[in-house]
């Protein structure tokens, strides 16, 4: 066939080779472009700063993703807590207070779920776990009412903890 229809055969060969090489070239160049651009952008920072920012971004992104995926069930909240606890040892110091706030919000939500199912002891235990985290963040009021407020707003958005009227 190749000998009988050389033009058609060469045409298909050309198309096949062009597409294959285009794919290989595109993949290799996009990987190289990606690495070069990252290197160029991070070159504006010194090595330590670059590493710190990278780990900070990774920790915040991981905690935010875990937070978004969490449902208002005991199992889901416990899974989120376990994810946050795993993240904590590797997180940079700047990310620790944010992780603590998320963990406190999870404990407060769990306390509310236990309360709803009349498991008072577990609810109290969860609240007692949330309090030191919030006190560590400098919260002056860690009463049950504040913890319930945190729990209520946990699934709307952590940002809704911000009161809607008037600055301090």
């Amino acid at each position, binding site marked *: 066939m190749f000998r009988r229809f*050389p033009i058609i*055969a*060469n045409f298909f*060969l*050309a*198309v*096949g*080779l*062009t*597409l*294959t*090489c*285009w*794919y*290989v*070239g*595109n*993949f*290799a*160049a*996009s990987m*190289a*472009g*990606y690495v*070069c*651009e*990252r290197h160029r*952008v991070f070159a*504006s*920072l010194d090595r330590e*700063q670059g590493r710190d*920012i990278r780990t*900070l*971004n990774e920790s*915040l*992104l991981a905690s*935010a993703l875990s*937070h*978004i995926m969490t449902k208002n069930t005991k199992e889901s909240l416990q899974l989120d807590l376990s994810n946050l606890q795993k993240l904590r040892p590797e997180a940079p110091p*700047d990310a620790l*207070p*944010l992780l603590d*706030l998320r963990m406190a919000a999870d404990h407060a939500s769990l306390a509310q779920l236990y309360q709803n199912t009349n498991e008072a002891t577990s609810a109290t235990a969860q609240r007692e776990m949330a309090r030191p985290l919030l006190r560590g*963040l*400098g*919260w*002056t*009021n860690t009463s049950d009412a504040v913890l319930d407020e945190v729990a209520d707003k946990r699934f709307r*958005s*952590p*940002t*809704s*903890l*911000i*009161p*809607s*009227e*008037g*600055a*301090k």
Partner: protein
Amino acid sequence: MSQLTKIVALVSCALGLIVGAASGASSGRESAAAIIDAGCLSAQNELSVFSAVQFHYADSDHARQAVLSEMRIDGILQRLSPKMLSARSLYIPYARLALIEDAAGNTSASQAAFEKAKEIVREHHPKEEVTLVKIKQGLQRYDDALGMIRY
């Protein structure tokens, strides 16, 4: 393999590689820039939200610490993603710091932070008169907007 086939194969490979590499390099660079921008925006948002929550619930020391940490990291993020993170929103941490220092009774520190916030706002709105009330309103609007975001 005929001479023609060899030439066709060689030209096809070269053409495919050149076009693929040319389009791939730019898309790789764009992807990296987009990923870096998204990471910076997300980190800035998280830190900003945390500062806002601390501002409303924590004592002065912790609220100050959160804002100072936000400012320091914002400065670094701005170098990574200058287009996405405009200096416009940078007046917010200064405005917050001014109010924290004011509540803590540090008048001179509060004044300095307020002046810095004013300076940043003026850079973007040179004709507008900037007052403490306007800065506070801006801060409140910003906090309200943050409250709408689910992340």
